[in-house]
């Protein structure tokens, strides 16, 4: 039986901009992500993709609904405990890479390892191993402004993987890359999925990226309209 990594039921999120301007970003979303899935979330602009990603990544809390990640109920989790779950259970890849500019590639990856509770020797070892696997052996001591977009995203991938998370959430991972580099990055993610059974949930508006995924979750007007 397939293991469920993420199960979201009836997720609702509302933003109150003003007394009259209330935005229902999510209106009861149900999602199941299984171990080894390589899924894309697609939908028109404003459909709630990023909001859903933030909630699944424990960066925000739903107003209603339940969320379980790797069998742990996260719904009522307070921030004091949420950071531990973010560190250990979830890997995040952002559209804009979001590396720490004052740290080298190696240090950026090691930092995530530190937050995940890895011992010093282990986090350095794993960080070097990941960066080497991703073709960045010669770039470990370079800062983000010394790397290309594709290299920065690879560092971000390594950072997302260092704590061996239950799921990797990627928010428009190719959004700021050219076509060739986008294909390279997607290739890396697919290989990680196929060979190492890593679970991915990718938010994208790019249909080519979506079509390269095994499953597609469609959002419209804050609801999951997938069949």
């Amino acid at each position, binding site marked *: 039986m397939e293991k469920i990594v993420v199960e979201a039921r009836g997720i609702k999120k509302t933003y109150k901009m003003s007394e009259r301007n209330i935005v229902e970003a999510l209106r009861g979303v149900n999602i199941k992500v299984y171990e080894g899935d390589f899924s894309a979330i697609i939908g028109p602009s404003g459909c709630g993709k990023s909001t859903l990603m*933030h909630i699944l*990544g424990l*960066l*925000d809390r739903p107003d209603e609904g339940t969320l379980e990640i790797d069998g742990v109920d996260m719904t009522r989790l307070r*921030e*004091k405990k949420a*950071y*531990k779950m*973010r*560190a*250990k259970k979830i890997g*995040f890849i*952002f559209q804009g890479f*979001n*590396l*720490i*500019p*004052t*740290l080298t590639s190696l*240090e950026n990856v090691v*930092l*995530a390892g530190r*937050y*995940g509770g890895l011992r010093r020797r282990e986090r350095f070892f794993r960080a070097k191993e990941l960066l080497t696997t991703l073709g960045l052996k010669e770039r470990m001591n370079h800062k983000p402004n010394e790397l290309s977009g594709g290299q920065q995203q690879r560092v971000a991938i390594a*950072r997302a993987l260092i*704590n061996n998370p239950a799921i990797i959430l990627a928010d428009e991972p190719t959004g700021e890359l050219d076509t060739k580099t986008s294909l390279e990055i997607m290739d890396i993610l697919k290989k990680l999925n196929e060979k190492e059974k890593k679970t991915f949930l990718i938010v994208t508006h790019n249909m080519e990226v979506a079509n390269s995924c095994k499953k597609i979750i469609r959002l419209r007007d804050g609801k999951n309209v997938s069949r």
Partner: protein
Amino acid sequence: MEIFRNMWRRKFRTFLTIFGIVIGIFAFTVMGSMALKLNKMISGGKQYITGQISVMPKGASYGTSTGTLPIDTLNKISKIEGVDKVGALASLLVEDQNLDDASMSMGNPPTIYGADNKSDFKNRNWETMDMREGKMLNRDSKDDEIVVGINIATDKKLHVGDTYKIRGRDFKVVGVVNKTMTGPDDYVFMAITPSRELLIESNPFMKSLYESGRLKLDDVNSMAGVSWKDGYDSEKVSDEIKDKFGNDVSVMSPVKMGEMIDKASAMMNAIILGSAMLALIVGLFSIVNTMVMSISERTKEIGIKKAIGASGRSIAFEYTMEAGIIGLVGGAIGMGLGALAATIINNKMASKGAEIFLLQNNFLVGVIIFSFVVGIIAGFFPALRASKLKVVDAIREL
């Protein structure tokens, strides 16, 4: 290391912030060293004053005697209940002060301290002196023998065996007192007879009285030191002396004098250190300002760190430490410069025995620790705000 790199992101701003702390700590170090020196001097004086009841001629205050105490008065004092011993003292300046000399000194002017060495009177807090050379005067000392304080020995380059001419008379140095940081550093200790004679010589009116036989040598006393018997209250004995002699003498009781000195000392410390603290507060607010701006600029970075698993506590710790290190660096530089300035000024004043500052290692180390703590305090509330930033809001920052 990341903390140092973050500080270096905005070099000029960091430099200005550190400079603000440098100024504050420099002032604190200099003023604090001055306060330490003054406190040391005062505590030495307080020790002396509270170790005896001091009786002076009418209208005199401590150290300024315009009249003399007759020996008869001292004899009467010795018979008061509770009084143990009475010692005669005659003091005057080694040299008459030149009123045209506008220079100021933090130390005492060189003073002759003439005591009756044959008397059994002893100050309760001041029984022995630590000698650098030679020995202290005793019952067997001759009238032309003197012991000098370290500042006088340094200024006049005196050692045991040397001759020191005071007011036209030659005296032989038989001892040099070790540094006390208080009054005795500027004293010339001599027997009471020659000091009385010098006092008469220095005062034309007294001299004419003495030469005409209307003033006896024994009656020329600047002050009487009075010790009290064990089991007696020094304040009550002082009151007895006041009651007996009324306004004819000024009586300084140990406890009251101690309290007066403490009050004056506390006020002086408050003024000196308060002014330094003001400079430091300005530095503290400059750190607060820098940290608030820094956190505002790095809001997205804070969001990223929280997104990848940083706790609020680790964020708060990171920014608090950054502020602490700014304080520490500024403190170390400010302390170094302050200590250097104090040392240079002290070296210039050393020849006159009038050092202004007292540099103590534990104070200097304490200053650096204090500046680190000031930095921590300054950075704490901005750091706390940073730790409470909502992740999703922080990440959305452009």
